């Protein structure tokens, strides 16, 4: 077996831990394994990925997995925002945390769907899916048996320093996910990798200011769509809104604007879902949609 898996989710969902669950389970099942997370200087809700390599022989790759055999997506809204399927090899598998089959429009990849978030909310009381995603990946790809997966979840949750009852709850989540997801047959071909080519170019000299790492044009931070970080969305109920402007004043990211009637409007392309507006709204005219 030689298997490269890439996991995608949002900061706070437990994607680093999910990768560790898969790595540890594979290790316990007797494979060589390597797992590593990747994240930037961002925050809760931002896109986080994790890479797991599993092999019968010592693992020979490192860092970013550009052409995975399987991809796990812990938040299906990332499909529109982060291209998590990029490079997924023909015959590969995608494991999605979603309520129902997602139309991806790629006939050469197989899909396993499980509503892990609903199970996590039921068992843990929040959208912490690490144990569930880890177990689902192990089962869907036939990496490790139930006992190894449960042991891996236990080890990783202990490593996080969780209370005994939370560890038990995570094991329950892992058990339910393991039981519910089918095992798919990977059809990727190891030899394919030799055919994958990126053209190498040499960067030409460019005159300053194009060659200086200082942004010299104003007003382009709006191009960074920070709305992708949001995992809870504030929605204004205009029947209750009194146009008091408190939300407009409190929004730390200037994502609430007022029109000529002083009616507030939320810019969802940039709202990070901090919910300060929800907390501050005097008439409680802002609701939260998860």
């Amino acid at each position: 077996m030689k298997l490269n898996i890439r996991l995608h989710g949002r900061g706070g969902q437990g994607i680093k831990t999910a990768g560790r669950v898969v790595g540890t389970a594979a290790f316990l099942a007797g494979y060589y394994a390597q797992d590593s997370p990747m994240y930037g200087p961002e925050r809760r809700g931002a896109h986080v990925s994790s890479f797991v390599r599993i092999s019968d022989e010592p693992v020979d790759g490192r860092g970013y997995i550009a052409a995975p055999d399987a991809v796990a997506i812990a938040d299906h809204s990332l499909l529109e925002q982060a291209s998590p399927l990029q490079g997924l090899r023909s015959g590969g598998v995608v494991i999605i945390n979603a309520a129902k089959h997602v139309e991806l429009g790629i006939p050469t990849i197989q899909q396993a769907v499980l509503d892990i978030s609903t199970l996590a909310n039921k068992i843990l009381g929040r959208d912490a899916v690490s144990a569930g995603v880890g177990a689902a990946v192990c089962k869907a790809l036939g990496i490790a048996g139930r006992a190894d997966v449960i042991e891996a979840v236990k080890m990783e949750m202990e490593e996080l320093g969780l209370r005994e009852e939370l560890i038990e709850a995570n094991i329950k989540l892992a058990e339910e996910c393991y039981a519910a997801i089918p095992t798919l047959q990977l059809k990727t071909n190891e030899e394919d990798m030799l055919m994958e080519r990126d053209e190498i170019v040499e960067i030409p000299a460019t005159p300053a200011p194009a060659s200086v790492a200082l942004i010299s044009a104003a007003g382009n931070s709006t191009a960074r769509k920070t709305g992708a970080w949001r995992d809870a969305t504030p929605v204004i109920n205009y029947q209750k809104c009194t146009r008091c402007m408190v939300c407009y004043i409190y929004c730390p990211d200037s994502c609430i604007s007022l029109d000529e009637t002083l009616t507030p409007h939320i810019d969802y392309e940039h709202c990070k879902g901090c919910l300060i507006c929800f907390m501050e709204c005097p008439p409680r005219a802002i609701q939260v949609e998860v």
Partner: protein
Amino acid sequence: MMLTGNSTAAWAARLADVDYVAAYPITPQSEIVETLAKWSSEGKLRAKFVNFESEHSMITAAGAASLTGARAFTATSSQGLLYAMEALYTVAGWRAPMMLVNVSRGVGMPMILQVEHGDVMAARDSGFIQLHAETCQEVLDFILLGYRVGEDSRVLLPTIVNMDGFVLSFAREPVELPDKSDVESFLPRFKHPKPLLGLEDETLAYAPTMTEGASYTYFKYQIHLAAQEAKHVFRGAVERFEEIFGRHHDVIEGYMLDDAEIAIVSSNSYSSIIRSAVKALRRNGYRVGMLRLKMIRPFPREEVAEALKHVGAVAVFEQNLAPGRGGALYPEVVEALYHASPRPDAILSFIGGLGGSPIGYSEAEYMVRVCEKAMKTGIAPQGPTILCRREDWQRIRAALKMAGIPVEQLSEAIHHV
């Protein structure tokens, strides 16, 4: 046991039973000192744990602790290492055999958190022994070996063990943790030949000596001779290491070099990628091999020359870029081969993987093809050759455009083959 590079470094310090830990946090190293701090508070680590206000005082304190006969450990990265640069020369001159784990990260500006070897290369002339790890296991092995070699009275020099930020520091892989008793037999308690803490009835004073030309030359040259001696002491240490732990080490590693026409020189964690690319290139008919540098200081020039003198061309792959020069290791490899007989027809410099850029089969094949062309035509490209993927270059152009730069006026990317 599955461990990250950082937690492996912490385990190595614990197993080496260090007496003194000097700490200052920096990404991507912080996990090392955080782990040691936790163990220290839980009583699992006997060492005195001290937080500092900067890397400069941290290194100085670790060096001073080492002079008292304590086994001292510290870790840093990137800007932190450069901030401590003066102190590196100081503790090497003190002949203080402390351990410094550097988790390589590019040096800003431009700002970066991911790996580049500009930080550790800047320390190459400080007098520290340098061992560069490819795997988490090597992080452990090199820390134990580094203490053993550095503390040897023939050497008495500090050691840097280098690992790549993120790619190794945050990656977990299987690591064999040795028994404490085995480590004790490999690494007996450090005894400084002339410790600052003398005998109880002995008063000791220690001050930096102000030298003049001849005495400065004498002391400085002694550091050089001791650094060179470190290679021979390392050779002895790896034999004992293999007896006890069963793992073999050397100053270099050759891979598929025996009948190779072209060799790629590499170091650190990206060597895993180069090795698998070499395997794939072989399947595609290229006669290629890899030479990995495990010891950077002292530079193993005789071993490099012996390993590479029969190949037709050498591609030196590096993850550092000295503006106005190129790769820092390239001239060292060229010098090692200059007086070799036979010697390669072409030795070319390639820079890639900067700031954690991924490399893969394509980069390795490109290096090999540029080498083949140089051998055939007798003309070598003016190096260094930078390795960039077309899609990355297109992304950069798009970003420049967003920043208001007229990209249509930029020249196009070129390629040699």
